[in-house]
């Protein structure tokens, strides 16, 4: 399979996942993730070239909803759950950079 996951890989993945790790956590997670991925290496024994992937356990197709307006949420109830609100909107610290 691929090479063993490195400390740098874990640091990169943590960044992608918006988690920050201190040095000790980085070490611990690196070895734990490596253990799990090593276990997954037993899949290398399988010849999977001709095998299609299964994304869904059920063979359902075309599950569609009619274009009919339904219930909307109560705004006060929704905003009450938010950590910070201003002018009936969700307030967040400044956003650096633009959406992709």
């Amino acid at each position, binding site marked *: 399979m691929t090479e063993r996951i490195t400390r740098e890989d874990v640091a990169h993945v943590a960044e*992608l996942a*918006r988690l920050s790790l201190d040095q000790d956590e980085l070490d611990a997670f690196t070895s734990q993730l490596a253990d799990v991925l090593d276990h997954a290496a037993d899949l290398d024994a399988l010849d999977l070239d001709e095998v299609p992937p299964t*994304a*869904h356990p*059920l063979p*359902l*197709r*075309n*599950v*569609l*909803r*009619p*274009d*009919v*307006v*339904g*219930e*909307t*949420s109560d*705004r006060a109830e*929704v*905003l009450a759950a938010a950590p910070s609100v*201003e*002018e*009936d*909107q*969700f*307030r*967040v*610290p*400044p*956003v*650096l*950079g*633009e*959406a*992709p």
Partner: protein
Amino acid sequence: MREELTGVIPGWETVIGLEVHAELATATKLFSGAPNRFGGEPNTNVDPVSLGLPGSLPVLNEQAVELAIRVGLALNCRVQPSVFARKNYFYPDMPKDFQISQYDLPINEEGWLELPDGRRIGIERAHLEEDTGKSTHVGGGGRIHEAGYSLVDYNRAGVPLIEIVGAPDLRSPEDARAYVGELRSILVAIGASDGKMEEGSMRVDCNVSVRPIGQAEFGTRCEIKNINSLRSLGRAITYEAQRQVDLLASGEAVEQQTRHWDEDEGRTHKLRSKEEAFDYRYFPEPDLVPVDPSEEWITEIRDALPMLPRERRHRLAEVANVETASVVLTVERGMDDLAFEAIAAGGDAGRVIVHVENNLADGAGALDAESFATLVAMEVRGDLTATQAKTVLAALVAEGGDPAEVAASMGFEAMDTEELEALVERLIDEYAEDWAAFIAGDDKERKKKSGFFVGQVMKATNGQADGRIVNEIMSRLALD
């Protein structure tokens, strides 16, 4: 304006591919029953699904699928079984911090769009995805990088989008504008979108590269974001192409980047390089099942499609015996039916088209096809000059009425040909030298002198004479 937009740099070719996002004209969102409605009080068109609340699940809107199929068919795409995927990235206006989109199996692939001049532009794909919410950046004059904080409204989150990815077949800002205009006309014609760029229901991202003329391979491209109007599109391409040519001309390389168009500064600036590109970690959306529209459904949708702008142009151009490029505006304004009817009612096809293309920019108003045909007939007979006809036409649009009565009320009486002949003879006497030059001159001189005499006749008649008839009289007298 046109000079500014040619974007033609001697020795270089600009290569452009556009990605257009259009909001689909459904009643509800792509994955829930919350209303798809522009405007409205913030955070009112929301439900657990469009807010991405824990435990909520998406269910696909049938009408959005139908509209997407219409788009695919109208763009001559292959409509195929498709799968939704998650595009993972963190951003406050994306409620789930992933966008449900289509990735390796889009609903429409490999089509084309025909520009008004007849060139075909490839369509790589047209897929379904959900829109994001909207952030307002507060403080720092609304600029994202200087804002103190942001406010997020999720009314738009989950609105169905069709993303139409065009091939890099466009070669100038004019091409790009024509492409977007044509695409817009198609989307509106098939009822897929209202196509309002100003409300953000149609948004354009633009890939630009340059290469020396004659070079086969493409140059390195940059993607330009934040183009909010057709005008910005032209300006952004012109700027970006020049920037890239300047780099290459000075021996530097173009870096593959995503760049932001700044409308106020009139320039693009770097957002991120290829290396900084997002790792979206696409994978099949487990909460949705594949979409596999039946042949019957596709056929039903195809059969119900209205005639598309391209076909309407071809049909009208054929009947009117003109180039398709001459009827672009007529079709775009949806006035081709009026043109057909006026022609059918006996109106001269060429004059009908000229009037609709040039003189009916604000619509036909109270004008009906019958009166239109009558007016054109009066003009062709010489009862009205072109200028008079245009004036009468404007009155008919504004108020309606009988063309002859309107013309009469404006004092537009057809001049008697004999009267006109007498006037021309008098002028020949008065300007004998010019007349001699007219008779003896070559084509160029004849043209110049005929222009002179027509001008004199118009002056004498307060513009009531028909220039064509004056020319006829002069030709006849010259032979005598």
